[in-house]
């Protein structure tokens, strides 16, 4: 479903991502892990055609995302970390707008939006999106990504800013997505959630791949994802402040 060869992206003089060779089969749930600034979001943007690669090639569902062909956009649902919503519209209005761009009928959209609202325990209403809380915006972006029934979903930090109750609903929904054979690429700092969902793990650090493989294969004996992360990326400093 996704194949990259020697993929790299440079901003100015610094490389955000370099020499990435990735192969994600259809139906896989890929968790992209790494520290802040490791290159996770850059990878998602490259795979969704929002950025153009500096070097290497990318193919998503057989298309080059750099050209952003409409056929690919119809197959894909994207939940960016930010900058995803038209903030003057109401939540329901936005979902209908995006749904119409995907060619969905009003009745179908109304039904799906109600289901999404029930699933995410939210009522989007007619308030403008700019007045929404951070969590509400995340839920709306997640809903917009799944609304048209995509075959491939990109989720950038989907759990950030959500309360535990909604996280539980989201996890259940994502498990359903995975079990239906929909390919998912998800970046997250929530390692326990990634562990529960992912069939495949990609760990990046400073733009380079540290680990790429099936979830069961990359972990050591009696090791969880957090252990793997801390072992390879480092445990961080003591975090003590002199004046506290």
């Amino acid at each position, binding site marked *: 479903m996704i194949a990259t060869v020697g993929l790299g992206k440079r901003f100015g003089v610094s490389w955000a991502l370099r020499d990435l060779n990735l192969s994600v089969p259809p139906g896989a749930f890929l968790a992209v892990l790494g520290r802040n600034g490791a290159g996770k979001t850059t990878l998602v943007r490259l795979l969704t055609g*929002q950025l153009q690669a500096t070097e290497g090639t990318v193919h998503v569902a057989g298309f080059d995302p750099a050209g952003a062909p409409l056929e690919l956009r119809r197959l894909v649902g994207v939940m960016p970390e930010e900058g*995803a919503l038209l903030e003057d519209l109401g939540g329901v*209005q936005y979902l*209908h707008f995006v749904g*119409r*761009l995907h060619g969905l009928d009003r009745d179908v959209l109304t039904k799906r939006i109600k289901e999404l609202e029930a699933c995410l325990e939210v009522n989007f209403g007619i308030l403008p999106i*700019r007045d929404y809380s951070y969590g509400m915006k995340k839920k709306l972006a997640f809903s917009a990504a799944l609304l048209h029934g995509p075959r491939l979903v990109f989720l950038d930090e989907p759990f950030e800013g959500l309360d535990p109750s909604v996280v539980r609903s989201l996890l259940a929904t994502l498990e359903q997505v995975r079990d239906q054979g929909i390919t998912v690429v998800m970046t997250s700092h929530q390692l326990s959630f990634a562990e529960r969902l992912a069939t495949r793990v990609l760990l990046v650090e400073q733009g380079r791949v540290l680990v790429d493989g099936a979830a069961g294969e990359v972990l050591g004996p009696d090791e969880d994802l957090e252990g793997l992360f801390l072992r390879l990326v480092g445990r961080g400093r003591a975090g003590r402040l002199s004046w506290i």
Partner: protein
Amino acid sequence: MAAFLAPVAIYLGGATFWAGTFAGSGLAGLDPVAAGTLLWRFPLLLGFAGALWDGGCVVDPRPCRPHFIAPRTLVMAEAMLGLTTPVKLAFAALGLSFTAGLGWGRPALLPLGMSFTLIMVLWIACLERVIHALAPAGILRQRAFLGVILGLGGSLAALSSLGGAETPGWVTAAERLWALPGICLVRFWQTGDWQLLAAPLVATLVLLALTGACVRRELAFDRRPGTALDGGRIWAFRRPWAGLARLQFHQLLASRAGQMRLLMLLLSVFLVKEPELITVGTVQMPRAWPALAAGLTFGAVLVVPLCNLLGFDRGGVQTWWTAPLAARDLLFGKVVGCASYAALAAPVLLALLGKAQAWSLQRSGEAGLQVHPSARPMAPGEALALTLLLGALFLWWAGSGLARSLRAPWPMTLGNYGVKAEFDEEKVARVAILLAPLAWMVPAYGAALLLDWKAAAAAMAALALVAAARFRRRLAAATVELAQRREDLSLGLVSRG
């Protein structure tokens, strides 16, 4: 806004100085009703404009919230800083030049001029806050309604006089009652009777109390939530560009910049009220006509940048890159949305133009005056030529604007959809784009009209075809460029803040 108001204030300074001198010498002979109504309506309109433009409190309480700043301190800060917005500063400059003129005519009237300026700035500041609090951002209908009720109450009389009917008595009475503070203030200046100050004093106290309540409420985060575009209505559209056009149209309507331009159209109603004849060279013509023509030009110049400078939604820019929406649909939809907004304004302007021309001909005929060619009623052929010219201009601007907005992207905000207030280098470049076709198309139109309306219509039709072909080429080029510059666009929008 400051860059726009500053040169206007300089030119108006001379005029207000002259008006001050005139008022100083002829204060006793002023009609208190006419002068008082004008005096009251002026801050109302400026307050209304300020409410649209400045958008509420100057002080942003959000950064102060974690630092335990007392509400009273915030209100005091707002009371001071609220007087420094462009509308009030420009008005204060005008008031001072009026005062200087007043003092030049009669030095004893200097305190009167100072009090006039102070009261008016205070009224404007108060009305701005009250109107803003009554009409939450983004609700055009409420603001338009408030505009008619408050500042434009007199336009009822103007409209009824345009229709040829006598102004109803209740309209006159309501207008006088509404303008009572201003009328009483003028009478006080004329007679020195302190009892007359009761009405303006009560009006000021009521305004201050209302303003205090509104400011406290806004600074305490107790704000009424906004409403989504078009009331959150679900839009049905078959083609993606049609959805984009609808979005752009409603964004323009909801933006402060878009509302200010519509307000200017409403203001043009005043220009055709009680017209007089003026002499230009050896020809007499109605005062309304050049004023309306100036208003038309001014309005067109201000409306058109919206069509020319297509902004991008910074908040949702990734929606465009990930939704199944072709680059051509995105750009074409934006142009159609802008054109719809311009088309909304056009009938109002044309109706006013037609009325003024009919009145001009009638008045000139009655007085046996020579009619200036520009004041003749427009023949259908000429109207056709003018429509074709405007169409050609729009297509030319849209073509240039597409390329410019891709190379120097500007984020759209609720304040200004794609039109920045500051007069920076980029704005100068865009104004140049705007003026370039005007510089040769309008003279070409005028020259063709001298021959014959058929020649003018044919020439303008040819021009429109050329502009349409150019727009088509530019749209195709912009489509390719948009696909190549998605990354630059995103980064440009973010870095330009």
